[in-house]
């Protein structure tokens, strides 16, 4: 039975698209069949981060409007044959999405994949509410700073009120993913601590992704970080998070790129 997961945050720029690509690839790397769906109609980015921007022919809106068939719009990843992308339209806006159209596409994707990962646009308007509408689970991406945390709190409220599951009286499984975490700055009190964030949001933690240049490097190369540099700290955080999402019990750590004393003496970073 397929699982529909929405990656959401309320606030923009916290790492939803990066996390969608990284987690989608991580799940596919462990043999699951995965589709990542870009709901950011008009401002699509996921195709770039996935390195598929030159292969887009049809998009999500074309499928909802019956102009293209779903298999025509899906783009298979060249590196991972179990990973696929459904790109958003860049020329339309969020009003082009309809609830019936989204339901039809999600229902069809459920038949074809183990995981349907929906990359939500920022905000709480139509695009974001339709991205979460049919989700079984949600990953709330939060940066450890007050505005991001408050927006996440708002989104959690919406997940408990505006999803089909919530309206049926069922629970939407919720996971918190803290990204851009800088241990040094948190220790100096320049950033909210993990405990502060968890206390405010009262939602179970899926993973902590450290701030790293590797993330930007992977985005620019059009490769999910978990594929581009699986040994890097953020990639290890995402790989662990994906295993927790699959129900494995893994100790929570904050991976680090810091080299040990021997590494400093003898080694260069393997990248």
């Amino acid at each position, binding site marked *: 039975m397929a699982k529909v997961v929405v990656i959401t945050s309320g606030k923009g720029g916290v790492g939803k698209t990066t996390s969608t690509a990284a987690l989608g690839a991580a799940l596919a790397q462990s043999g699951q069949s995965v589709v990542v769906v870009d709901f950011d109609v008009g401002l699509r980015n996921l195709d770039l981060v996935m390195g598929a921007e030159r292969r887009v022919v049809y998009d999500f809106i074309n499928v909802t409007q019956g102009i293209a068939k779903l298999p025509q719009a899906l783009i298979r990843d060249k590196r991972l044959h179990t990973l696929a992308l459904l790109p958003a339209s860049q020329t339309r806006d969020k009003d082009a999405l309809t609830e019936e159209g989204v339901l039809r596409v999600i229902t069809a994707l459920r038949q074809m994949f183990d995981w349907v990962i929906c990359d939500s646009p920022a905000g*709480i308007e139509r695009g974001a509410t339709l991205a979460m509408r049919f989700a079984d689970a949600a990953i709330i991406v939060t940066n450890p700073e*007050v505005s991001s945390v*408050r*927006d996440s*709190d*708002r989104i959690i*409220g919406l997940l*408990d009120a505006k999803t089909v599951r919530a309206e049926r009286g069922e629970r939407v499984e919720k996971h918190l993913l803290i990204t851009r975490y800088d241990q040094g700055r948190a220790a100096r009190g320049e950033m909210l601590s993990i405990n502060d964030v968890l*206390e*405010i949001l009262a939602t179970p933690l899926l993973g902590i992704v450290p701030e790293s240049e590797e993330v930007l490097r992977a985005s620019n190369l059009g490769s999910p970080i978990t594929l581009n540099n699986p040994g890097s700290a953020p990639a290890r955080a995402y790989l662990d998070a994906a295993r927790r999402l699959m129900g494995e019990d893994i100790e929570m750590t904050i991976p680090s790129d810091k080299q040990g004393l021997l590494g400093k003496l003898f080694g260069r970073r393997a990248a």
Partner: protein
Amino acid sequence: MTSFVPPRQSTRFICRSYTAVVLAPQPPIIEWVADIDERIKDAGSFFVGPPVVLDLSAVTLSKSAIEHLVTELEQRGVRVMGIENVDPAQTGASLPPLLRSSRGASTDANAAGSPVRDARRGAATLLLDKPIRSGQSIFFPDGDVTVLGSVGSGAELVAGGSIHIYGTLRGRAMAGSHGNARARIFCSKIEAELLAIDGHYLTADLMDKGLRDRPVQAWLEGNAVRITTLD
């Protein structure tokens, strides 16, 4: 030639209840209006925007005086949706419609102190066993509200009676919203943006910094909201 006229759907009348802010002017009116100006300055836009009901039980005004008062309020951004506790002869088409409140004048000292009323108040409690998230708004004019989780920054809790929060209060809590000066606010940790009891406000700026993160209660002493720790 015959034409087919589709049967007209019968008109339906729907009754709905809404919560509104009630303003009860006290004599002398000029000072009361000045006080409202002061409140708008302190509390920002709390009653600017949402519809307001004017309770005229404490004053005796002629029709033209009521019209003048409504205009004065409108100039301050306060929109009057209805008037209550006024002689119907003093109202008319030029004024907002006359409302009949089921609970009577809330500022009436005798009614507020009557045991029957208190017993009924005590019976109604709203229990919320989940955190109140940012952007959520809870209105419970009938009595106390108890929250087992936290109240998020940007969330709003309005209760006719007292408010009990067993988590952290980060948003706004307004107790005694229907004229109950005896209502209190309790929380196990305070980081509130705003506290209000019976229309008297205290914003985060005015709260003692030493109280932050501590378990406290807030109550009304005269016209001032007081806060003390519970530990």
